[in-house]
Structures are given as structure tokens and as C-alpha cells.
């Protein structure tokens, strides 16, 4: 036996459902743009600090890295205004000029296997350069990018003694015509910034862009904390090594094929 239908109750029910539905839709409409924006744009406004929700990293496939190709180095020089093409340090000897990124060709002592790779600041999670810096000029952002604050660097070079990758350079003379986004200064220390000015506006480091433009596709840039990012997927599928893994620095730059 079925229950007799109460018409009055049914009308109220329908009205209530419609009301709830509309409210939810309105709330959804109000919230959605914010959520979509958060999802799409990593870019922060200038007053927001870097977040530890990201850990920016690079992955370099040495098998794809072109022997003799220096596109990443040239791109970095153009982008950040250092090196021969900018003639920024005319008085300094070769061993005194800044080098943010360099190409190294290696031969395995046992197998004779030859490979080539770019070497730059490894953006360690536990950076020795930051540990030793007396003034805090050497610092690591929350998103893992290791930088030098040129305003408080006293030029003691202790960070250069401590870096296991020889990634840092001291500026041995006065500089002119610097890039606005990459200030450099006589008497201070500098190194690869992972093109932080690009990363902060959602871009890709110049070296990675140049490598892709050359068609080598040997470099990945992305968020190591985002399990769906290309870099994380590639690391998960094909692995990646750290340089001087024994030091347990947990570098942000990884290499394949070493």
C-alpha cells in the first residue's frame, strides 16, 4: 500500500530543493574564478612571499645534451648579462670572470663512456653556502631557489669555499650595463638564480627554453612538489641522480644518465 501524497508538502519540498540548488550555483559562481585562478596561475604579486608549496627544480638528461652545444650557456649570459658576449668584465683574467653555468664533458674512468652536461648552482635543500654565510646574504627561498642578496653580501667568499659544485663567482671589478632583473655588483658573490624573475612570473629559465629551442629537450623545469608536473613524472618514471649525493644536500637540480 502506498502512502497518500500530500500536495502541500510536495510543493514546499520542490521549492526548498530549488532554493538550495540556486544558492549552491550562486556560491559556485562566486568561488569558481578564484579557484580557477589559483589553479592556473602560480604567479604571485610582488608583495607575496615565495611559498613552500613549490620546490622548483631542474632535470637534465645527459644523453640528450648535445656535445659541443652551448645554447644554455649563451642563453643564460644573454638573459642575465654576464660572460664574454656582454663584455661585462674586461679587466678580469679568465679565472676571475663570472660563470653562472658551464658545459662539462666527462669520461668514465672505467668504461670510457663520454657525456656532456651543464653545471650550475644545484639549488640544494641544505645549501652549504647558506649555512656558512655570516650575514644571511646567501639565502634559500621557501620555494627552494638559492640566491645571494647583493645588498648585504660583504664579499667574504666563504660561500665559494663551501659550495661543492664551484657554482659561485666573485665579481672582481666594477660592472656596467647590468640587467634590471639581474643586479650584479663588484665585490659581491653571484650564481645561477634559476631565472627567478621568470619563475615568479610563471616563466621558464632561459637555459631550459634555449635547450628546447635547439631541439635537444635535455632540460626539464618544474615543481618537484607537484606530482603531476612533467619533471616529477619524468623523475618517477626514469629516475634522476644528484651530484655528490653522498653529501645529502637534496639538490633541486637532478641528472639522468650519469
Amino acid at each position, binding site marked *: 500500500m502506498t502512502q497518500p501524497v500530500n500536495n502541500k508538502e510536495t510543493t514546499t519540498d520542490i521549492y526548498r530543493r530549488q532554493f538550495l540548488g540556486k544558492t549552491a550555483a550562486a556560491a559556485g559562481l562566486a568561488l569558481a574564478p578564484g579557484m580557477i585562478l589559483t589553479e592556473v596561475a602560480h604567479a604571485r604579486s610582488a608583495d607575496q612571499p615565495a611559498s613552500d608549496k613549490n620546490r622548483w627544480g631542474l632535470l637534465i638528461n645527459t644523453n640528450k645534451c648535445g656535445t659541443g652545444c652551448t645554447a644554455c650557456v649563451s642563453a643564460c649570459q644573454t638573459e642575465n648579462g654576464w660572460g664574454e658576449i656582454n663584455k661585462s668584465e674586461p679587466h678580469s683574467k679568465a679565472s676571475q670572470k*663570472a660563470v653562472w653555468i658551464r658545459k662539462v664533458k666527462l669520461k668514465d674512468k672505467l668504461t670510457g663512456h663520454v657525456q656532456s652536461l651543464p653545471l650550475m648552482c644545484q639549488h640544494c635543500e641544505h645549501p652549504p653556502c647558506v649555512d656558512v654565510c*655570516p650575514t644571511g646574504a646567501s639565502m634559500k627561498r621557501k620555494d627552494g631557489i638559492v640566491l645571494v642578496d647583493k645588498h648585504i653580501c660583504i*664579499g*667574504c667568499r666563504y660561500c665559494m669555499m*663551501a659550495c661543492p659544485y664551484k657554482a659561485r663567482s666573485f665579481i672582481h671589478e666594477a660592472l656596467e650595463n647590468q640587467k634590471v632583473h639581474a643586479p650584479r655588483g663588484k665585490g659581491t658573490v653571484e650564481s645561477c638564480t634559476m631565472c627567478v624573475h621568470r619563475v615568479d612570473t610563471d616563466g621558464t629559465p632561459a637555459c631550459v627554453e634555449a635547450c628546447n629551442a635547439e631541439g635537444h629537450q635535455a632540460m626539464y623545469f618544474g615543481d618537484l612538489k607537484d606530482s603531476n608536473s612533467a619533471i616529477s613524472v619524468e623523475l618517477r618514471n626514469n629516475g634522476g641522480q644528484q651530484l655528490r649525493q653522498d653529501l645529502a644536500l637534496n639538490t633541486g637540480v637532478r641528472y639522468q644518465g650519469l
Partner: protein
Amino acid sequence: MKKTIPFLAIEGRSSGYYMLLAILATFILASLGAFYYMEHHGHYVTGMSNQIVWGMPHVFAVFLIVAASGILNVASISSAFNKKAYKPLARLSALAAVALLAGGLMILVLDLGRPERLVIAMTYYNLKSIFAWNMLLYNGFFAIVIVYLWTMMQRNLGKYTRVAGTAAFLWRLALTTGTGSIFGFLVARQGYDAAIMAPMFVIMSFSFGLAIYILVLMASYNWTERPLGDAIFNRLKNLLGVFVAAVLYFVAVYHLTNLYEAQHHDFEMFILRDGGIYTQLFWLGQVLIGGVIPLIIFYTPALAKSRGLVGFGALLVILGGLAQVYGIIIGGQAFPMTIFPGKEVIETTFADGAIASYVPTLAETLLGLGGFAVALFLIAFCVKIMQFLPASLADKDVDPHYKAS
């Protein structure tokens, strides 16, 4: 009761005294000129580079800072360990400690890329940085040793001398441990990353500091024609011998440890056999000139009778010490870092895998010598204006029971 030996300021009116001050002032001015030259142009005018980032100025600075804490030992023996024979020597010892530290720090500061920003380093401390610890240790050292001197020099404060002296002794141990740890805690480089470097620096400080002390004492007493008896002189000489031997022992243990570990073999071969200038500095400078020859002089009775030879031995300890610090600082950087274990670097634009070359320039050396000059000038100046030196260190005044052997 035995009367205490009075302390008297030196007269300091002789032409010799003014000549000494003038020579030291010339060196100081030259070092300031070198500083201006290096800072005005930038460090490209030096031999330092992105491979050898610390050069000759750091060799002198580290040597002086290490020696500063060591030269306080003479005072510590008198106050912290209550050895009466050393009491008359304590004031000069504390004065020299402050002076040498001032000289060493001057070099370090004037070599900075941005020396005008020193105020940042003095007002902000990254407490994980050994450099930051050292800045606190240096400032504390000045404060404690000056208070210690005060308790020694003001009559009614004598009862605090032992406490102040003990505090200064403990502080100086911490200070040299900190200096050694600047290198010992660097994991990146093959030549460093060794805990033994901290105690090795402590024992180096004993040796370098005492060698300088003996020479300063000999000069002060010779030039002022005050008596300096064998009782005190032979004690100091024998003690220096012990310290020199102890440095050799620590150096031997350091290298033996490295030789046992396969990963350090290349570095050891570099320093001990194939390193050219660094190998020569090690065997000839550090071991032979700074160790073996002084030991022979100090412990061969026929040779040790000659004050001149003992003074020469102390000078050799200083030269050997400079060679040792040069080997540690420059040699440790010249040897390439192992970034790719098991691989050979066949092409690079940044000298990876290659031994770095370094040729110090005159400016760097003058800056370093200026640190020595500042220290000696301060000592020479202060012994004239205040009572640091005992009127006599003759055997009968120091130790009436001393019998010449």
C-alpha cells in the same frame, strides 16, 4: 719574603725605538695603500680568482689570528695554571694577544669585497655560520683579554686575575677551535672536512704564538738592555720545542688518516708528492724549516746555548707556520674538487678537475705584512705608555733557586 719584580714602561726615547716605529708605520701605510689599490680597482688586480678565492691576505690573517690566541698561553700558564715563574710574563702575553688579533682582523676586513659593509656583519649574525661564531669569539676575546689585563695591572683587582685568566684561557680555546673549524667543517673540499683540524689549529696556535712571544721578548730586553735570564728563557724555549713536536704529530695523524682512506689518496699524493710548490712548502717549509731544524736547535745543548740560534729557531717556526697555513688555505683550494666521482673531466670552461694556479701579487703580500706591522706597532707603542714589561727577568729575580745546568 721575596719582593715582586716591578713593571716599568720602557723609556722609548732612543733613535732605535723611533726607527722601529717608523719602519712599522711604513709597512702599515704600505698595506693601507695596497688596500686602497685592491678596493679601488676590484680584486682583479690580485692573484685571487674564482678558483682560489682566499689568497695571501688570508694566509697572514689566519696565521695572526691563530698566533694571537696562542700567544696568550704564557699568561694562561701563570693565571689559569698558577705557575709563578710565568707571572712577570703575563702582561706582555695578553697585550700581544690583543695586538696580533687586531692585526689579523685588519687584514681580513680589508680584503673583503665590500669592507664598508662590515657593520652588517657586526649587527646581523647567521648563527649557523662559523664565520659569525668567530666574529662573536673575536669580539669576546678582545673584551675578556682587556678585562684580564686590567685585573693584572690595577693593584686592587689582583684577586680577580685568576678568574679572568681562566675565562680568557677557555675563550681562547674556543676561538682557535672556531678558526680551525672554518676549514674543518667544509665538506666540499678534499683537503678540509676533517674534525682534527680544530685541535690541530689549537696546537698550531701554541707553537706560532710562543715563537712570536720569544722573539718579542728577546727584542724588548735586548733593545732596552734589561736582563733576561736563562731560567725563564730556557723554560720558554723547551716549551716551544714541545709545541713544535706536537704540531708535527697532529700533521702526521691528519695525513695518515687521509692516506688510509682511498678517496683521499689523490689529495695526499698532491700535497706529499706531486704538488710542486705545495709539496715543497710541506716538506721543506713546514716539516724541515718549521719543525725538524727548530727541534734540533732547541734540544741540542750545544746549539741551544746560543740565544741567537734559539731566536733563529723561533723565526723558523714562524716561517714554517706560514708555509703550513699557506699549504692548508691555498693548497686546499688548488686541488680540484671531486664533483663527479669516477669520472674524468675532459672539457670544461671553468677549470673543473684541474689544479688551480695562484701567484700572489705584491699588494696582497703587503696587506698581509701590514697585519704583522699593526700588531708589532701596537706592542711597541703600548710598552712605552704603560707598564707591561718587568724591569728585570734575571734569574735571581725570577727564580732564586734556579741553577744553570
